[in-house]
């Protein structure tokens, strides 16, 4: 029953929001909905990690360790972004940037978006998963264009056009995979269930499967933000309302990567690990390399964070490509760490841009003096995302590097290490410019509101906590997922 609750709750929440008109009612629905989804996700994950894979509806719904892990991520960042939205939109309404009557559509779209992401992860059929991933694009495109300004509409248009094209390529790849599977399994939709595909993978036509993987990697890779298909990402992530940016960066990218991982697992069984691993390393490394110059010469704080997301998705992709249990462990841990830290950063950037009324790095000065909570939080968050100990990103990056060196992939790991170090310099330079100095006269001292400040501190504390101590629960969970993914 739990998967149905998990899918039903966001839809119910979205539906209820349609009928609410007041900001207060919406806030209550939003908080209750977010918490209910969170609790269901925890219960479901508990079930999967203690009792094993959850199957419903004749294997239509199939949640194994990897799926359960991503569900946890979605529920967590979804709840955090939902809570942050309260303060964020309270300020937008006060500042008169938004009419109260339009607010409900934000929450409706928000929870439909959460629903589509959860749907990606719970279904077994790769075709349905494709439909769900496309649905994430459609629901979030309207969120990206929510502010109805020229720039946000431009971003939404680019986002929907580029991602839809990308994803049609993934459909073509899925089709090729189906064609390969039908020869072995016979007709019917079971031929696209990844649980079935995994069992017969060794009998599939290797040529077709390879071609299928290339199309799927390029297609879903567009949504992951892998270079050179990443061009929509900085626009969409910078123009969306900040809570949505956190959701896009923290989990949507991981959902798309999940699509690639599923197919990667099948293809590895068919043609051996060499082919897919090499492709993943190439695309991942290229993404990190492309992100670097844009981070070094960035003028816009939210675009800076968006390019940093491209970099981190690149790191995760490379880590999956390196393969082996330790690298997979690092990759999965990095997904969690990146989601938490990037949420903290997008929330602080949201506060800062609301307070200074600009996204330009050059115009945000003296943030620590002007905003006593957000300012230090942004600085510490930048340290965290750049991979400085004792924060969590350091742990996962360190794991990935040591796995790479342990496997003798000196060139790949060394190159990644150099790039990550350079990115560190770029991020710290930009953020230090904003954090220090004295604020311009027009900017008052103080936070936008208390709630927004609290929501910046919570994820940052988690980032610090996970940096000094990995709770055994999380360690075990990730270990299980890495084992399931065939790490040796």
């Amino acid at each position, binding site marked *: 029953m739990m998967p149905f609750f998990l899918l039903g709750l966001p839809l119910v929440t979205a539906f209820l929001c349609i009928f609410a008109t007041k900001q207060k009612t919406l806030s209550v629905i939003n908080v209750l909905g977010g918490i209910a989804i969170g609790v269901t996700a925890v219960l479901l994950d508990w079930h999967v990690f203690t009792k094993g894979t959850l199957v419903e509806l004749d294997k239509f719904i199939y949640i194994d360790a990897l799926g359960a892990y991503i569900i946890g991520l979605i529920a967590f960042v979804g709840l955090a972004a939902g809570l942050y939205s309260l303060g964020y939109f309270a300020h937008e309404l006060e500042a008169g940037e938004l009419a109260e009557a339009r607010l409900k559509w934000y929450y409706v779209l928000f929870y439909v978006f959460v629903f589509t992401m959860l749907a990606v992860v719970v279904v077994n059929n790769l075709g*349905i998963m*494709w*439909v769900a991933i496309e*649905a994430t694009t459609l629901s979030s495109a309207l969120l990206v264009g929510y502010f109805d300004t020229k720039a946000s509409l431009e971003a939404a248009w680019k986002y929907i056009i580029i991602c839809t094209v990308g994803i*049609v390529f993934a459909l073509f790849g899925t089709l090729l995979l189906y*064609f390969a599977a039908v020869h072995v399994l016979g007709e019917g939709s079971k031929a696209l269930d990844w649980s079935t595909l995994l069992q017969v993978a060794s009998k599939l036509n290797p040529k*077709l499967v390879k071609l299928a993987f290339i199309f799927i990697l390029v297609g879903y890779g567009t949504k992951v933000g892998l270079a050179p298909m990443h061009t929509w990402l900085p626009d969409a992530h910078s123009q969306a309302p900040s809570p949505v940016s956190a959701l896009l960066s923290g989990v949507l990218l991981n959902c798309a990567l999940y699509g690639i991982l599923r197919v990667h697992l099948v293809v590895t069984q068919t043609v051996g690990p060499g082919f897919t691993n090499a492709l993943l390393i190439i695309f991942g490394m290229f993404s990190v390399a492309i992100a670097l110059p844009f981070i070094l010469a960035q003028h816009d704080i939210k675009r800076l964070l968006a390019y940093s997301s491209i970099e981190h998705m690149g790191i995760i992709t490379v880590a999956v490509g390196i393969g082996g249990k330790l690298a997979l462990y690092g990759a999965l841990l990095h997904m969690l760490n990146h989601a938490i830290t990037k949420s903290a950063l997008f929330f602080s950037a949201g506060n800062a841009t609301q307070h200074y009324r600009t996204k330009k790095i050059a115009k945000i000065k003296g943030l620590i003096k002007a905003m006593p909570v957000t300012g230090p939080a942004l600085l510490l968050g930048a340290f965290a995302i750049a991979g400085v100990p004792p924060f969590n990103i350091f742990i996962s990056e360190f794991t990935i590097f040591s796995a790479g060196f342990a496997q003798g992939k000196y060139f790949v790991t060394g190159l990644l290490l150099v790039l990550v170090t350079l990115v560190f310099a770029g991020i710290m330079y930009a953020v230090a410019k904003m954090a220090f100095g004295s604020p311009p006269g027009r900017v008052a001292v103080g936070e936008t509101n208390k709630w927004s400040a609290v929501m910046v501190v919570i994820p940052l504390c988690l980032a610090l906590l996970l940096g000094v101590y990995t709770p055994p629960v999380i360690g075990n969970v990730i270990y299980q997922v890495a084992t399931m993914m065939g790490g040796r």
Partner: protein
Amino acid sequence: MSSSELSNLLITLTLASSFLIIIGRRLDSVIKAAVVQGIVLAIFTAVRGWSTGMHEMYVAAVLTLLVKAGLIPYILNRVARLVDTGWGIKSYVNTKMSLVICVALVIVAYSVTGDMLASGSAVFARALPAALAMMLIGLFIMTTRKRAITQVVGLLVIENGVFMAGVGATNGMPAVIELGVFLDALAGVFIMAILAFRIKRAFATINTENLRSLRG
């Protein structure tokens, strides 16, 4: 004429209808060409249903007719009328050059997938290169045409290509997935229409050339 010959003819016709979109000089003729492509694709789907004996294919054919040749062109037409920015096609590449490039793309698609499927079914082996060619032509339309509506038509051509490959595969795509793909295509065009409206309101044009302020 055997069913496989008929299928081959229809595959060729579908591909050929992409060229109607390329040579269209006005927005309404481009949308009409998209309707033609939808109709040919629907007939192809029905023929495949008849030759494979799978009844879901007929449902898919009717849906193709309704969505690809009916609803989507209707929405595009309405948007074009409501935003009222004239019917001219604006392109970075002129029609003659576009034709030459698209012919080259077709040749590329056929030479790349030529020996891919020695063991595959006859129809799929024909449909695959044509599908790839349509995907490339669709991409070409999307990258060279400046107006939002023509870009959506380009997307439609890509989708039609993939759909044709799906129908051409031995047993087609499973019905559930086909339904999902249709719903997505429809919802996608609908949302793009909404965005096109808002873009028109904000920029007073739906020329995507203006969408160039976000860089770096």
